[in-house]
């Protein structure tokens, strides 16, 4: 007797597989959609950059302000130069 390819049991398994597939695709769509919506609704780009795992105090709101209040415009110039140097070094790696 030959093996029957199709069986009601296979329909149920197919239903499960398709269901799980759609749920996972839906989850991907939701996470992607949330990411897009959250990023596009940020008030300033610095809020996005703070999550890139590199400590960059110069993009933290308030830090620059307090630094400039304490040391004046000269410190700002130094910070900007340091930042530029860091970017340059990162590009060489």
């Amino acid at each position: 007797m030959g093996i029957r390819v199709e069986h009601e049991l296979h329909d149920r398994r197919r239903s499960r597989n398709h269901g799980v597939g759609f749920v996972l695709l839906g989850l991907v769509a939701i996470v992607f959609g949330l990411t897009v919506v959250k990023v596009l609704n940020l008030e300033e780009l610095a809020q996005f950059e703070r999550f890139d795992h590199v400590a960059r105090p110069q993009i933290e709101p308030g830090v620059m302000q307090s630094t400039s209040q304490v040391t004046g415009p000269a410190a700002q110039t130094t910070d900007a130069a340091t930042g530029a140097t860091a970017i340059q070094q990162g590009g060489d790696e």
Partner: protein
Amino acid sequence: MTDASLNNTLTSAETGEAQFGDYFALLKPRVMSLVVFTALVGLLVAPVGIHPFIGFVAVLCIAVGAGASGALNMWWDADIDVVMKRTAKRPIPMGKVQPGEALAIGLALSVFSVVLLFLATNALAAGLLAFTIFFYAVVYSMWLKRATPQNIVIGGAAGAFPPMIGWAAVTGDVTLASVMMFALTFMWTPPHFWALALFVKADYGNAGVPMLTETHGRKATRAHILVYTALLVPVAIGIAFTSIGGWVYLATAVILNARFMYAAWLVWNRTEAQAEADEYATERWMFRISLSYLFLHFGALLADAVLRGFGIGGW
């Protein structure tokens, strides 16, 4: 044994292999429809806006969280579900889904819905959803349901949270308006379920669930329906005078509460012999109108919110 020898008439109950729909049934889709609607209204009547996609994800998370607590409830109550006619066709009593699967799905979806709601909205909304799942699965299902005839009263809180979570997802706070929406569903639950318990009397008794009808008798249940309905009326009408109320809601609430109070009074006035003579027609009618009661109240809140958007609703 090969597939060739399997009989085509085998069912999932015999093989233990469920269809996707069987897993979906664990989430109590009909209860979810109420949760989705009330959560959506809570979200839409809030005084500030929300991005439509984030709102969609928030309502989805609340619905999935409610479904997850339903799956946990079915896992815990499998032994009594098989005894009751009303619940005997659920996936676990039918043998379509194994209890362990229901537990795993319930836990996984609980974590998924709470975490995603936190990421999409805020910690308060996620915390309220987590508490709702805990309250329904542990406080109601595992503790109160089999311990006290007041199970429905306290357990009703679980079903009352969704509009409050919807509101919190948008505003990040809990206010009088959101508490009143909670109170409406909370106070509505006892008369709704006790009306049901009056005409499915044998079921709860057979399962050993201490419903009020079994522990205090049917006359006392009728009196409880009347008293709880009388307590519900001021809550329902009181919402009209909060920030989310308006003329549409007030008119709707007055009509619906007059009708619901009348139904409760009729149920209270009937003897058991009268009820059996017409096969609990009045009790069934009260149960039916209790369903539209809640939908129409929240629908009226939504209507007032839409009108306020055009500058013609509210106070």
